């Protein structure tokens, strides 16, 4: 089932929720719609599910006009953050629902429905829970039921709206793997809406990163990582250091070092702001090392990794992420040299940064790097 979304616009009052969204999902592909809240990803999902009508644009599934079909006729599987299980029905009844409400002609026999339910219980690894009520299940079990229920009708498209949002971290990780396994087993074209970049990057064949009603970039997790299409993509996907630079012939020149510019592909020469990841940041304590002179102000641990907070003479704070083994040589108060392996340009010679990247980064966790 190939899904083609072409030029979707959707406005709520004065607020443009979708401002021209086009994309294609290949048959059997797993897509993640990723973006901050208000980026339009949920609206796009609701348009696909038939819960909202776009103002403009079209959606085709294998060449059939999808928007002309009612939500009921689309045969999509929907999985909600809050599960939305039918609370007065058993697990088995929940899963069987989509089959039992079919018109008599196309309804499978009771035995066939029962077999299908068993098959789905096994697929989602909740065998033996068929007789329970939703209230008697854990959150993770409920979401497995929700997925099984959605798959029962053999949907042409499986839509998941923040399916792990209500679960604790451990269950979330576990279910993430399950979901991918189930997807691979069924081959159903799947679209996952999430604001969690780790989840999106982990699960999807391709990630659709959205911002302010537009698509910023579509690509494999590696593509997004390696060649971010915009500063927004870069800042949204991870912690970011910022530093002013001078661009010359595809290289960003700093006070004491230079680094290749990854995005944009052909940067114009001139002054710019460079963005780079803590993990792309090197520290060197050697007397003749190249780099920006900084002083280490803080070191904190994170598993086998260490985050080393540094302060430049200008007062800028920058973060380096090093393996524990490498980090051992540094200590707080030490003067070292800092350099970036590669950078993305935020503004000036490159493109301007959309939105407020500082805020977006800060929203992603306490370890976010402050800037400027």
């Amino acid at each position, binding site marked *: 089932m190939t899904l083609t979304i072409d030029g979707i616009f959707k406005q709520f009052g004065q607020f443009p929720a979708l401002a021209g969204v086009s994309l294609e999902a290949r048959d059997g592909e797993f897509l993640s719609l990723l973006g901050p809240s208000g980026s339009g990803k949920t609206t796009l999902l609701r348009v696909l599910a038939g819960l909202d009508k776009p103002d403009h644009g079209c959606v085709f599934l294998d060449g059939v006009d999808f928007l002309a079909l009612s*939500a009921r006729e689309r045969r999509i599987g929907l999985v909600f953050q809050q599960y939305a299980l039918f609370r007065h029905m058993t697990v088995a009844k929940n899963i069987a629902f989509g089959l039992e409400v079919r018109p008599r002609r196309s309804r499978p026999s009771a035995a066939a429905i029962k077999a299908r339910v068993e098959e789905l219980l096994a697929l989602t690894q909740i065998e033996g829970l068929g007789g329970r009520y939703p209230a008697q299940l854990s959150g993770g079990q409920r979401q497995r039921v929700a997925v099984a229920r959605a798959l029962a009708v053999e949907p042409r498209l499986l839509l998941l709206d923040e399916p792990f949002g209500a679960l604790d971290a451990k269950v979330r990780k576990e279910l993430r793997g399950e979901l991918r396994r189930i997807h691979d087993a069924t081959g159903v074209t799947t679209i996952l809406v999430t604001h969690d970049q780790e989840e999106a990057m982990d699960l999807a064949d391709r990630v659709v990163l959205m911002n302010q009603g537009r698509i910023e970039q579509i690509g494999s997790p590696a593509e997004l990582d390696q060649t971010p299409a915009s500063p927004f993509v870069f800042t949204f996907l991870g912690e970011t250091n910022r530093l002013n630079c001078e661009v010359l012939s595809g290289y960003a020149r700093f006070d004491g070092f230079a680094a290749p510019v990854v995005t944009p592909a052909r940067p114009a020469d001139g002054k710019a702001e460079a963005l780079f990841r803590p993990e792309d940041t090197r520290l060197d304590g050697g007397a003749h090392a190249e780099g920006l002179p900084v002083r280490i102000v803080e070191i904190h641990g994170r598993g086998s990794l260490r985050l080393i907070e540094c302060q430049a003479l200008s007062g800028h704070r920058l973060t380096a992420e090093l393996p524990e083994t490498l980090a051992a040589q540094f200590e707080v108060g030490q003067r070292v040299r800092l350099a970036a392996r590669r950078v993305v340009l935020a503004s000036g010679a490159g493109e301007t940064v959309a939105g407020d990247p500082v805020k977006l980064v800060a929203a992603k966790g306490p370890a976010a790097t402050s800037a400027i």
Partner: protein
Amino acid sequence: MIARSHQLQRVDGPIPILLLTVALAWLALIIGAPLVTVLTEALSKGLETFLATYKEPDALAAIRLTLIVAAIAVPLNCAFGLAAAWSIAKFDFQGKALLLTIIDLPLSMSPVVSGLVWVLLFGARGWFGHDLDVAGIKIIFALPGIVLGTIIVTVPLIARELIPLMTEQGVDEELAATSLGAGGWTVFRRVTLPNIRWALLHGVLLCNARAMGEFGAVSVLSGHIRGMTETLPLHVESLYNDYDFVGAFAAATLLAGLAVVTLVAKTVLEQLIRAASTQKPA
């Protein structure tokens, strides 16, 4: 709406016991004592006289009229309550707050006013009085008027019961059912209705009790024609004014009995709602 016992403290110490005693004494005084009075008055001239009240054609007519009024008003309010609660809980629209206020209006309005509104509209001298007269349609001082008066007074009871519950439950289950291919009616019957059935019954029960017991609005609209437009509460008043105290209290016993039955049914239902809200299998 329903307190869960495990969240409450145990009754312990002098102040809770005092409060509990005051509450129970108050209940005994304002509910228990009148009930006992009604029964003793009704039986003051023996069981024969008591039973004779129910053989009176006027009493039978009043009982029948009361049942008919409830049989019309309750289903109509049920349909309205469902529609209103559904639209308020599941949709966003302009004027939602206004609709909520209007639904609540009869609760804060004297039933006499609720009755007079219809007189103003449909009375012989009312806005539509002349047209109705020409068409030969009688509303005021006839069954339709009594039903209208009853409906306006009882309109909030079912809607009020459903709105908070349906709002809390949200639309996700309905959306899920729709996406699974269920039609509107199927969604209502198999998803929405089972989720609200106990609250709905609870509302119907309250609505029915109020419909059968309503005095003020019905009094304005009835015309007090014996054996024709007197409901049971009005009949009680008539008998009382006739100095037929035994008759009045015997008829009132029926109403009190209705109240007791309602109370018991309500308690049972609330147990069921509690069970349903903790989502244990029924």
